[in-house]
């Protein structure tokens, strides 16, 4: 079988492009098979935080994996700038989660305590602050802000420019990009993979499934599984451009490098990424205004909904096939935050042909198979 590619990556979103970038850095010949503009494409709809605090409750190693990515971001930004000339406007000055009642504050404090008391969890700074302390860093918070938590590792980025930078950098590194190649079937044959798409067959020595929710359909073709939630919708509201007033991102409100304010972080059970629940927007906007009363006069210019890529337990899945060696699957919700670790840690393992169980064994989908896990 003639193979033009060492590795085919299925999915051209942030996750697939970050892995493809890491593989290309390792000198591999890579082709990305992408569905096209009709794809659900969480990379176009996300909130663009590079976020550490609150990650890992219930799975301590996820905290360490997230911190590792956060630490790798500076290098990623520098490399992408060198490759593409694009500044993805990454900032890591720390970030806040704000509470609008004593009860929310108690819940927040409990979560911070629980994350840090888990055995084997990576230690990092997160401070619980009252109104006065927060006001010194975030002037203009409303009187209803009781307090919150601040983590110096948190940051944000221009995610659309990041997406473009990955595409440009991969193009420069010789990664093939094929839109309109929705993968219909994958056959494991003679130590390689034959991948069927409406635009013909693609052959590759290895295959990486990074197709978001579609991994659920694709994984069984190569002896893997990817249990996903398919109805986890989020909405984002965007305002007109205004002068900078927000020095730090808040988990639900951030101001972009170009001045727009993004309001986000809703969770809703819906599989419809074309619809919009205005009642949810109203709650998000109301909370944002109570956090920053100055927003009351700011005009909203657009809003959208997008389906989250969410595994059944919310933590990433990285796995390799036992029956079809050379097949890998990657699913995660935080494609922005984890971009650095996908490029610099996960991709080199895939390039070498085996996941390092010391580093990522805990993220295997085996955890969903009760009998095997028991």
């Amino acid at each position: 079988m003639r193979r033009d590619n060492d590795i085919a990556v299925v999915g051209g979103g942030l996750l697939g492009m970050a892995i493809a970038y890491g593989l290309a850095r390792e000198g591999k010949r890579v082709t990305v098979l992408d569905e096209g503009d009709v794809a659900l494409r969480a990379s176009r709809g996300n909130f663009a935080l590079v976020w550490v605090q609150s990650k890992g409750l219930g799975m301590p190693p996820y905290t360490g994996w997230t911190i590792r990515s956060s630490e790798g971001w500076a290098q990623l930004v520098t490399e992408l700038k060198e490759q593409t000339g694009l500044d993805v406007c990454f900032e890591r000055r720390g970030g806040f989660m704000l509470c609008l009642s004593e009860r929310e504050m108690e819940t927040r404090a409990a979560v911070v305590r629980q994350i840090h008391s888990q055995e084997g969890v990576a230690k990092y700074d997160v401070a619980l602050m009252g109104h006065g302390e927060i006001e010194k860093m975030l002037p203009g918070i409303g009187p209803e802000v009781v307090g919150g938590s601040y983590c110096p590792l948190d940051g944000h980025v221009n995610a659309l420019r990041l997406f473009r930078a990955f595409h440009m950098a991969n193009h420069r590194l010789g990664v093939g990009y094929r839109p309109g190649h929705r993968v219909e079937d994958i056959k494991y044959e003679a130590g390689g993979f034959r991948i069927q798409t409406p635009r013909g067959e693609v052959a590759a020595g290895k295959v990486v499934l990074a197709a978001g929710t579609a991994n659920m359909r694709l994984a069984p073709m190569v002896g893997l599984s990817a249990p996903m939630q398919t109805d986890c919708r989020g909405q984002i509201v965007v305002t007109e451009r205004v002068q900078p007033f927000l020095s730090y991102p808040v988990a639900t409100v951030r101001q972009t490098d170009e001045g727009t304010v993004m309001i986000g972080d809703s969770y809703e059970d819906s599989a419809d990424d074309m619809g919009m629940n205005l009642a949810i927007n109203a709650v998000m906007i109301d909370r944002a205004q109570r956090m920053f009363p100055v927003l009351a006069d700011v005009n909203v210019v657009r809003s959208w909904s997008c389906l989250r890529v969410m595994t059944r337990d919310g933590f990433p899945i990285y796995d390799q096939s036992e029956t079809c060696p050379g097949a890998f699957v990657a699913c995660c919700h935080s494609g922005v935050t984890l971009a650095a670790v996908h490029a610099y840690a996960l991709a080199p393992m895939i390039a070498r042909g085996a996941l390092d169980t010391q580093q990522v064994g805990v993220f295997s989908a085996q955890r969903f198979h009760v009998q095997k896990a028991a």
Partner: protein
Amino acid sequence: MFKRLPEAEGAAVAVTIDGEPFNAREGDSVAAALLAAGRTYCRETPISGAKRAPYCMMGVCFDCLVTVDGVGNRQGCLVRVQDGMCIETQHSKRALGELGS
């Protein structure tokens, strides 16, 4: 650049454009008044600073954004002139009261 039609009627409405007095006509939109006053642009874009003038005149293009009575990013084509109205060219991003630097 633009001239009013000979049959155009309406009482004068006194406004200021960047501090200069101008007599608009009753029924003018802010964007129409700016064009009647001979203004070739009404704002500079927030990122690149490119100049922009009213274009679609029907609320769609958002190119005629101006500051009206101290409130930025108003669509000039959708606001009727009123006596004493203060219309200002918008530079860069909209300021937010005391918080906007």
